[in-house]
């Protein structure tokens, strides 16, 4: 697939910002779910940077990825406050029930699993973020329900599309 046009669109929208590389990379992630290889040389050229500099920025930040992953990002908080409320057990359950480890996607490409270090919801731990929604006091059961909801809405969307 060729993403050049989309990437150039994004660059055009952001090029006048000071220090525009992070906003551009965020915008690419939002649009494409990953940063395609071709973006590196394109961005380097447009921002007057070396490809190494662009690559370096992508690899430095957890939020940026060069591989396409599952469509829903599930983040389990691994920080101290959540650990004090049983997140270590929760993460074991999550990995078993989804059948994947951190940094992996489910076979149907529905879910991508990632650790996160604090969602700022530490008085009602353990916390989980699914896309842009944050959930408090998550138990293994309530986690499974959240995943069922994602699966249900996927089936519904497919039915509607048919």
């Amino acid at each position: 697939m060729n993403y050049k046009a989309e990437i150039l669109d994004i660059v055009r929208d952001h090029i006048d910002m000071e220090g525009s590389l992070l906003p551009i990379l965020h915008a690419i992630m939002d649009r494409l779910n990953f940063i395609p290889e071709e973006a590196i040389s394109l961005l380097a050229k447009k921002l007057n940077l070396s490809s190494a500099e662009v690559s370096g920025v992508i690899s430095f930040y957890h939020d940026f990825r060069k591989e396409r992953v599952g469509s829903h990002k599930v983040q389990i908080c691994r920080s101290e406050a959540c650990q004090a409320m049983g997140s270590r057990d929760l993460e074991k359950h999550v990995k078993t029930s989804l059948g994947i480890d951190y940094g992996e996607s489910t076979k149907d490409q529905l879910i991508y699993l990632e650790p996160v270090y604090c969602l700022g919801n530490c008085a009602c731990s353990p916390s989980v973020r699914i896309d842009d929604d944050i959930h408090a006091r998550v138990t293994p059961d309530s986690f499974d329900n959240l995943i069922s909801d994602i699966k249900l809405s996927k089936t519904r969307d497919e039915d509607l599309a048919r």
Partner: protein
Amino acid sequence: MIKKIFVPIDTTAIALGSNVVAEIFENALKENGSDIQLIRNGSRGMFWLEPLIEFENNNGRFSFKNVVPSDVLPIMQLLEADDFENLATGNEKFLGNTKEIEYLQNQSRLSFSKAGIGDPLCLENYTALGGFKGLKKALGMKPQEIVDEVKNSGLRGRGGAAFPTGIKWQTVLDTKHPKKYVVCNADEGDSGTFADRLLMESDPYQLIEGMIIAGAAVGSDQGYIYLRSEYPYAHKTLNTAISKCYAEGFLGKNMLGSNISFDLEVRLGAGAYICGEETSLLESLEGKRGMVRSKPPLPAIEGLFGCPTVVNNVLTLGAISIILGQGATFYQDFGTGRSRGTLPVQLAGNIKRGGLIEVPFGVTLKEIVEGFGNGTHSGRPIKAIQVGGPLGAFVPKQQWDTPLDYEAFSAIGAMIGHGGIVVFDETANMFDQARFAMEFCEIESCGKCTPCRIGSTRGMEVLDKIGLQQDVDSNLILLEELCDTMENASLCAMGGMTPFPVKSALELYKEDFTS
């Protein structure tokens, strides 16, 4: 009868279901053709009671705690009554008048006085509660007068380092340069902290006001809020708040008819904890890897894009609007020793009554954890308390009487940091926590200096050997030496303070390391 219903819209309230409850109330009100107003307010920070829904009539505001969808119908039946608060008394979730809730009464709310009162994005509400009073005053003052006011308040940076804010501002004011910046550090990455988030989501204009004042004080016309990407709701709230300020003339050219201009923009971080360190944050804002810079030069002299830059935490800038609005003396009157004003403390982890409490410096840890927190959520005894985030030491029971005061805490080898307190019950294994501290450093180190980058990796390896009970005695010595190296030779607090939780866990809970 009830005139207004308040349903909080902050992250924790939403994470506990407040959006669903709001929708049910809204539909029920519509069905009844009721003219009761439903307001999405910020949170008051009593998170263990969320969703905490309030109902206002002529007698005041009354709350229900932990409201779930099934509670809505019985509450709806009370709304038309003249004596709502008497009829509600029978409901086990009814808390009475919100003002009289002990947890709130025992606080000194300055920075958080407006949080949870009304719609965080309503400018009229903000102004009615005293907002922009500080800004209006500042616009009539000379830059040096503003800086002096901040100095006189005794305000110290609330991000963790506790550097005197007025002195930082003075340096930026004194540095001659055609371009200067005001940067808000909203990369609140410490586990157990959420005060910045709560302020940004529940009272965003207070932060914006503080930043405009900072700009006027040091001669800067451009501000950035560097916000962590883990806060999606705060991101939306801030962006809406900023565009409303532009629309009403609080931001932009010739603000409020003055000759002062100030532009403000939110920039998202990308999941790197180290970007909470100010020089790394500046690198990130410039679009680079978040590598820590060597100091000097100080950011106040050579900061963002090489220009003099004020870098302050959300709470520091939030306090500015209070200090200018109510005067340095008013603020200074709270606190103890060289720690003036109030500290927003965040009670987190395994705690029964977790949330945000704003108290004057000088209150003891015990009063906070036992008085406000009421013990652990699990009901088991407390085993450990970590103060000041992932780089903070565990504070032993015999030191829980230490007053919250920057100097008193540093005297016992601990730190207040950003005011996060994480409680662990007796099931916690402190060896695991020590290993996690090293693991976290290994994951989040920027990699610039060797003690942090390699030290954390070696720290994990040594701890793993200790965990397997291999040569425990000699590996413990090795661990101690490694900690010393990290502490003394790291470039910033990440590597320099990761040993704090490790060493204090080892000192206080040695049995967890040797069995």
